[in-house]
C-alpha cells in the first residue's frame, strides 16, 4: 500500500469534483444536461459529514458547495441575478471542469486496471558491462611479468650483498630536475637505469612524485604498461 502518502478522503471521495461526479452518477443524471445547481442540496448534505477533515481539505469542498448554491440561487431567481462575467465560474465552466475530470478518472481507472493485471516489462539489471582498458596485450603482460621476475631475482642478490648505499630524496630530486631541464623529456626507465636497487627506485619514485606535486614536471603514460614520460612544466606555471 501507499504508506508514505497520508491520503485524506471523504468517505472515499478524492476531492470536490470526485464527490460531485459521484452524485451525478448515483442519481443517474446526464452530466451533459444536469443543472448542477440542483445538486447543491445533496452535495451539502455530504459535505456536512466532513467535520473531521483538516480545514484546508474542507475548504476545497466548501468552495464548490458555495458555487453550487450560487448556481441554484440563480436558477431560482433568474431576474434578480444578472450574470456579471467577472463573478467567477459559470455553470458551463464548471461543467467543462467536471467533464474533464470525468475523462481523467476514466483514464485513471484504465491505468489502474493495467497495474492490477500486472502486465509490466522488466529491463536487464546491471547496465553496461565494464570493459577493461584497451591495450592489455598478452605480450605486454608477459614482458611485464618477465621484468618482475628479473626484479625478484635481483632482490635476492641484494639481500645477500646488502649494499650500504644511501640515497637522499633531496639529492635525487635535484638530479632529476637538472636532467629534465637539460633534456625536456626523460623516461622513467632512463631515470631508474639498467639495474636499480630497490632503495634507488623508491627514492627516485618519491623524488618524482615530489616534483610532480610541486608542479615542476608533468607525467604522461600514453598506453597501458607503456613508458612513463617526464617532461618539464612551463616555467610560468611553476611556483618559485
Amino acid at each position, binding site marked *: 500500500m501507499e504508506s508514505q502518502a497520508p*491520503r485524506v478522503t471523504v468517505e472515499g471521495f*478524492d476531492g470536490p*469534483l470526485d464527490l460531485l461526479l459521484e452524485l451525478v452518477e448515483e442519481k443517474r443524471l446526464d452530466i451533459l444536461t444536469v443543472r448542477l445547481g440542483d445538486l447543491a442540496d445533496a452535495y451539502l448534505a455530504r459535505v456536512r459529514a466532513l467535520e473531521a477533515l483538516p480545514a484546508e481539505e474542507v475548504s476545497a469542498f466548501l468552495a464548490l458547495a458555495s458555487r453550487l448554491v450560487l448556481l441554484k440561487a440563480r436558477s431560482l431567481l433568474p431576474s434578480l441575478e444578472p450574470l456579471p462575467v467577472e463573478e467567477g465560474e459559470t455553470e458551463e465552466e464548471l461543467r*467543462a471542469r467536471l467533464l474533464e475530470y470525468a475523462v481523467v478518472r*476514466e483514464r485513471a481507472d484504465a*491505468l489502474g486496471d493495467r497495474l492490477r493485471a500486472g502486465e*509490466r516489462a*522488466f529491463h536487464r539489471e546491471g547496465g553496461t558491462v565494464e570493459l577493461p582498458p584497451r591495450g592489455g596485450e598478452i605480450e605486454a603482460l608477459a614482458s611485464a611479468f618477465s621484468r618482475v621476475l628479473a626484479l625478484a631475482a635481483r632482490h635476492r642478490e641484494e639481500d645477500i650483498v646488502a649494499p650500504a648505499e644511501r640515497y637522499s630524496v633531496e639529492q635525487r630530486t635535484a638530479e632529476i630536475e637538472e636532467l629534465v631541464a637539460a633534456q625536456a623529456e626523460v623516461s622513467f626507465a632512463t631515470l631508474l637505469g639498467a639495474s636499480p636497487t630497490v632503495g634507488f627506485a623508491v627514492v627516485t619514485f618519491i623524488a618524482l612524485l615530489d616534483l610532480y606535486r610541486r608542479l615542476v614536471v608533468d607525467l604522461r603514460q600514453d598506453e597501458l604498461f607503456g613508458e612513463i614520460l617526464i617532461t618539464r612544466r612551463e616555467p610560468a606555471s611553476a611556483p618559485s
Partner: protein
Amino acid sequence: MSRGELARVAGATPRGVETALAELGASYEGTGLRLQNAGDEWQIVTAPDHAPQVAAYLGADRLRLSPASLETLAVVAYRQPVTRAEVEAIRGVNCDQTIYTLSSRRLIEERGRKETAGRPILYGTTWEFLECFGLGSLHELPRALTPEGAVLESVAGRGAATPDR
C-alpha cells in the same frame, strides 16, 4: 540506448537505424522480449505477457497506487508536460502529496520549467512508468474510452478549445 549511439556504433544512418529497430521490434513479436522506446531512447525489455514469471524470478513486488495517485498519474501521462497547478485545476484538489509519491516512485519526473510567471516545474512520465504499465512507448497509452467517456472527452475538449465568454 539512443538512436544516435546506435547509428555511431553500427556505422549507419539514423534512418537506417530506425528501419532496423522496426525490424527488430517486429521480430520480437511472440517472443519473451520487446523494444521499449521513450523519446530517442531504446531498450530491450521483457514482454509484459511474461511479467508473472519474470516477477517471480526477480522477486519483484507489484506496484500499488491509490486512486488519487492514479488520477494524478493519468493527468500527467495524458497531458505531459504539465505543471502541478494544472493537475490541481483538473482534479480540483491539492496534489502535493500524490506528486511527491509518484516522483519518489520514479513514475514521473521534472521536465524543465514552464516559461510563465513563477516558472513552475513541468512534470512528465518516466521510463519506469512505461515499464510498470507494460507500455512499449507513450503511443501505447490506452486511448480507448467507454462510449460515455468518448462523448465526455469530445465535449470537454470542445469546452477547453472555446472557453465560454
